């Protein structure tokens, strides 16, 4: 099989790579780009640990092929930045609210929340719960995760 000439933007940088067309997006991110913040929890799109932003929308990178990234813009947890270029608002509130326990699901939860707040800056608690349905977390019981997302929403809108 001929390699595919992939052109895309990753975390703000233009990237050109030849990749096997069978490469999954998750493997491309973790193995080829060495960005380890995106996790594999199940490999079948059920747990949300591998969520990334593709043109601003949250997608399960384990279910996509790297070639689908062609001509698009990818943001992983490593590429999320706050308005001042420092920590992103969600990263701050996740820490402040104690929403990080083992932290394996945290990047995915932050990506999902960011996608929601971009789309719907005044998301309600119910919206947040619905959006995070695709992100499993066994440590926190979600209580502190939900407060962290609400706090980030409020800070953003303040």
């Amino acid at each position: 099989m001929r390699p595919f000439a992939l052109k895309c933007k990753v975390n703000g940088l233009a990237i050109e790579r030849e990749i096997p067309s069978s490469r999954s997006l998750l493997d491309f991110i973790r193995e080829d780009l060495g960005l380890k913040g995106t996790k594999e929890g199940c490999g079948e799109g059920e747990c949300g640990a591998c969520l990334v932003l593709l043109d601003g929308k949250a997608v399960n990178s384990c279910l996509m092929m790297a070639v689908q990234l062609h001509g698009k813009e990818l943001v992983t947890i490593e590429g999320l930045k706050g308005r001042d270029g420092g920590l992103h608002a969600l990263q701050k509130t996740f820490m402040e609210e104690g929403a990080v326990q083992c932290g394996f699901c945290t990047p995915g939860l932050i990506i999902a929340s960011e996608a929601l707040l971009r789309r719907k800056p005044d998301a309600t608690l119910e919206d947040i719960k619905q959006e995070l349905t695709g992100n499993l977390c066994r440590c926190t019981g979600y209580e502190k995760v939900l407060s962290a997302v609400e706090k980030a929403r409020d800070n953003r809108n303040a």
Partner: protein
Amino acid sequence: MTVSRTETSMDAKDLKVVNKPVRKQDALGLACGEPVFADDQEFKGLLHAKLLWSPHAHARIKKIDVSAALKVPGVKAVLTYKDVPRVPHTTAGQGYPEPSPYDTYTLDSKVRYVGDRVAAVAAETPEAAQEAVSKIKVDYEVLPAVLDPFEAMKDGAPVIHDEPDSKNIPDARRNIAAKFDFEVKNGEWFKEADHVLEHSWSIPYLQHCALEPHTSIAYFDNFGRVVLRTSTQVPFHVRRIVAQALKLPVKKIRVIKPRIGGGFGSKQEVLEDIVAALALKTRRPVKLEYTRKETFVSSRTRHPAVCRMKAGVKNDGTITDAEMEITLNTGAYGSHALTVMMCSGSHTIPMYRVKNNIRFVGRSVYTNMPVAGAYRGYGATQGFFAWECLMDMLAESIGMDPVEFRRRNYIKLGEGSPVFKAMGEGREGVEQVITSTGLFEAIQKGMDEIKWAEKRAKYAKQSGPVRRGVGAACMMQGSGIPEVDMASATIKMNEDGSFNLLVGAADLGTGSDTILAQIAAEVLGVKTEDIVVTSSDTDVTPFDVGAYASSTTFISGGAAKKAAEKVRDMVLAVGAKILDKKPEALRLEGGKVVAADGASCALSEVANTSLYYYDQHQICATASHYGHTSPPPFQANFAEVEVDTGTGKVKVLDYVSCVDCGTAINPQLAEGQNDGAVVNGISHTLSEELEFSSNGTPLNASFRRYKILSAADTPPVRTFIIPTWEPAGPFGAKSVSEIGINGPLPAIANAIYAACGVRLFDAPFTPDRVLAAIKKAGKR
């Protein structure tokens, strides 16, 4: 020289760092996606491991041919039972000698469940490894299998462990992996009782579902030693058990636990032998990462159980007699078979005073099913489901409010139980009395929050198909295994007045690195940020049994505190020279040595003096700690539910959990522990069950089919911490990590009964089961 500062002179209000919601030390890296987990580091020349798993529940390998597998391009090694040492051992990461039978082999010529190890491959790519696995030809002699523990104990049942070299199996012929009988007899059974009630409760196969699958990388250091970078809760037990299984000296192995993505007991299991064996064979770094399906089937599960309880009560509310007979399904191997069974009684029966007679009969039974092991709650989950539901039934039989009935009978300050001494974990237990309890306040707070009296009255008269109810359950657990669990800590001082804290304790996401730093910081009068924690590296950190048995805060925290006190005394001795004062007249505060008259010197000056100027020495100390008792945390749980009697759907409307964990070293992290445990328990209650075909093949080993609660499914859970002061704990602390998982099954079962008059005895309470129970009881 010692500076006397007794524990009792302290109070929570005097604390500066402890009992504060200090930010978790690793939160920043985790929130930014830093490469901190086992699989996040890259290794040059890394090989990928895949295992061939048994398709049969019980079979002997007549012939195994790996020639085709070895021909797959990129394949570097294929191991079968012929290639590894045959050493009976247990995978249970417990104190040595482990109380679990030695019935497991790295690879064996017999397989005992669907998902058992058959062979292992290492190859240049995961795809090549998988292809090689598919090309291993195995000729099995399929043996009769037994999937039910009660069938397995019968005469003539297939014998699962018929090998001659396994050890410490109490009755291999009857498939009994562990047994224990115990009786306190003060008179004729049930003679004084006005009412005697009896029933059985059951829990199915449940999996931990830590989001990070089991991941281990074996590589070699510059001296040719095997280094295991692995997602484990028990680094020191991994080192010891891998050494045993592969016949290596302990000194040839180093185990490093990086950040790990949750464990809940599943990573208290030593499964690293096979990846180490592949590395030794290939002399290359090898990674073994379980898929989600493999994690479900071939890591570990909770012990399914049938718990029969029978108890007598007098009309005045006195519990006269109590009997628990529990049968646990340990699956194909007896990992934690004895100790989980013991905790199902030892953590539960003492909860309430029993006037006359107590009996416990426990059996852990082998079946050709997935292997059970440690799981948060550790037997108490199974035991409390029965005991707390029976408590509700007993209260009803005498017409007493169920909370009032519990209040009359729960174990009070200064009281003990014969069960504590009789039921240890592999050894005799220890006698103990309750030295701290906030259960009274926890119950009161919970009743207020759930509006107990108001709702019990309101929901007593309902009509229509949708009914509501409130239910309660009380819990206790332990804080480490007394006289068994040991932890140690080393603290050394640096030039800038900061300290390195080296602990063997294993932070599995709980925040133990942070709370241990808080404990050291409190003693040393510095900020938590001035304590740099390194944990869980068997080459670098001192010994610790690891993260299990709710031990880390209590045992490892005790070690951190003792080490800090030793270092404090060394700091004060140097400070006394600098300030020309007596050490007894000095204290540590705000990063300084401070005298009563206000004179002070910075810790950096102390450090520089000791390192460079005068009487040069490294200020450094190590301390060890173990518990003589295991002070229980207590908890009161209240659930409000809505039952649709037309569909059987149960909705939890509110869940209040009030926990007495002594001093919460970090209230935010303690709340997080309890929230997570409770939601895991609610998930057990409402939806979780690993299902099997009639030949033992798992049917729903994926997140799609094995449903754990998501954010949208999770009811409001409200955790309240009830502060008490435990004299034996560091700064008054007890444990908090496990207790919360045990409450939801009984609290929700009792609430469902209050709502619609139907008792549920078999978890989970899925709509079909609830509906069947409603129909059977004629409550529609």
